[in-house]
């Protein structure tokens, strides 16, 4: 009985607050990550050798460094040289850049899988190179990259929990604080786990709807 009251009056409100922060971390990071991933993936395939080299380096570093190290660099590292980011900004920046590096590779693969005939047909109609990429190749590639990119967004939902390591107190951070105070680790973290499970289920059902809606043209 005492536990139910504790959960209802202490745990639940705090976790809902944390969930709000988590969502505010996940949504902009997912959107920025996808957008930056599309740009870097496209430059990787169609860019000049110099941009290709730069994108390659970017992907190598941001996929290679553990995310937690990247967050530390953005939050603690930059502060050393006088750039002070808020915990929230540092987290969104870190998530977006890391997520984009993975998206970039999914998009690159999808772009390469589009038949050359599509570009030929567009060029034959008088499309410029940029128009061909923008209106013909990318829309088709995005559809093919969607399962991979969706996977990355699901990862993002879960690695958003690292934000509390740079003092951005989101869902996991709130749970850690509650659990340390009450020592009810199992109860609190089980609830948190279920909340993440709910977020992931919601995201995958939205993504699969998007895939189906988008898929009609590829029957």
């Amino acid at each position, binding site marked *: 009985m005492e536990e139910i009251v504790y959960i209802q009056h202490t745990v639940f409100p705090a976790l809902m607050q944390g969930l709000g922060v988590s969502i505010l971390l996940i949504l902009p990071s997912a959107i920025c990550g996808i957008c930056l991933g599309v740009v870097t993936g496209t430059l990787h395939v169609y860019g000049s050798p110099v941009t290709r080299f730069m994108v390659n380096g970017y992907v190598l570093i941001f996929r290679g460094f553990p995310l937690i190290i990247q967050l530390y660099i953005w939050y603690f590292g930059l502060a050393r040289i006088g750039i002070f980011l808020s915990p929230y900004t540092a987290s969104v920046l870190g998530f977006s850049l890391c997520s984009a590096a993975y998206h970039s590779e999914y998009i690159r693969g999808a772009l390469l899988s589009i038949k050359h005939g599509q570009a030929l047909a567009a060029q034959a109609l008088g499309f410029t*190179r940029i128009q061909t990429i923008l209106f013909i190749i990318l829309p*088709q590639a995005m559809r093919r990259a969607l399962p991979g990119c969706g996977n990355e967004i699901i990862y993002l939902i879960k690695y958003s929990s690292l934000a509390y390591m740079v003092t951005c107190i989101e869902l996991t951070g709130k749970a850690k604080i509650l659990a340390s105070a009450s020592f009810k680790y199992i109860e609190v973290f089980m609830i948190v786990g279920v909340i993440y499970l709910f977020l992931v289920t919601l995201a995958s059902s939205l993504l699969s709807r998007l895939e189906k809606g988008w898929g009609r043209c590829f029957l």
Partner: protein
Amino acid sequence: MDPILSVENLYKQFGDRPVLSDVSLSINAGEIKVLIGPSGAGKSTLLQSINYLVPPDSGRILLEGRLVNGADKRALCGYRQQVGMIFQDFNLFDHLNAVSNIEIALIRVKGLHKIAARQRAMAELDRVGLTSHANHYPAELSGGQKQRVSIARALAMDPKIMLLDEPTSALDPELIGEVLSVIGKLGQAGMTMILATHQIAFARNLATEMIFMEAGKIVEQGTPDVILNHACCVRTREFCSSITDLTSNQ
């Protein structure tokens, strides 16, 4: 009369292998030239070189007397709008339905308003008899229907000349007829065309001139009657007799 399109001394090599050597031809408005020849003769490369999809190594191309400059990207896009291209494997945009396949270039390239583009696209679909399939995606169309949509797409750009690269060779025998009849009507309406095909009987009726190509060279050209029945070159005679035998056996 000045030719609408002239190709002068075109050369193209892939690696060490010459695929076009010294190809020249010119075509007047309303004429239909048919390219014949074995696979690998350079027919497709010639057609793709004419609109710079495969940029020639050397040679000149003139549209209505004006030299086409392959290095000027903007001018090249303008030139390509005037030269319709039909591919062997249709190359419809897979993410767009039939009517959007036609209107996208009208909107993005010609800068037409959406409503005007839709009207024009529907009119072109009507011309190839596919109004009822306007909302079908390429994956929902038969090969013949796809090729007709791709013809409508090219026609919507008001091309001065059409290049058709074996438009029926990827089709089921049953579906060839519907595409040939669209091409035939186009020819009767006075469209200037260069057509690579193996449909000899069809080409014989349609062509102003036939051009026999082999190993990247034009071996012989002349009226269908001359090429098919009284060719000077032995190789032309061999090729023509083998394909006419084939069609008469069917």
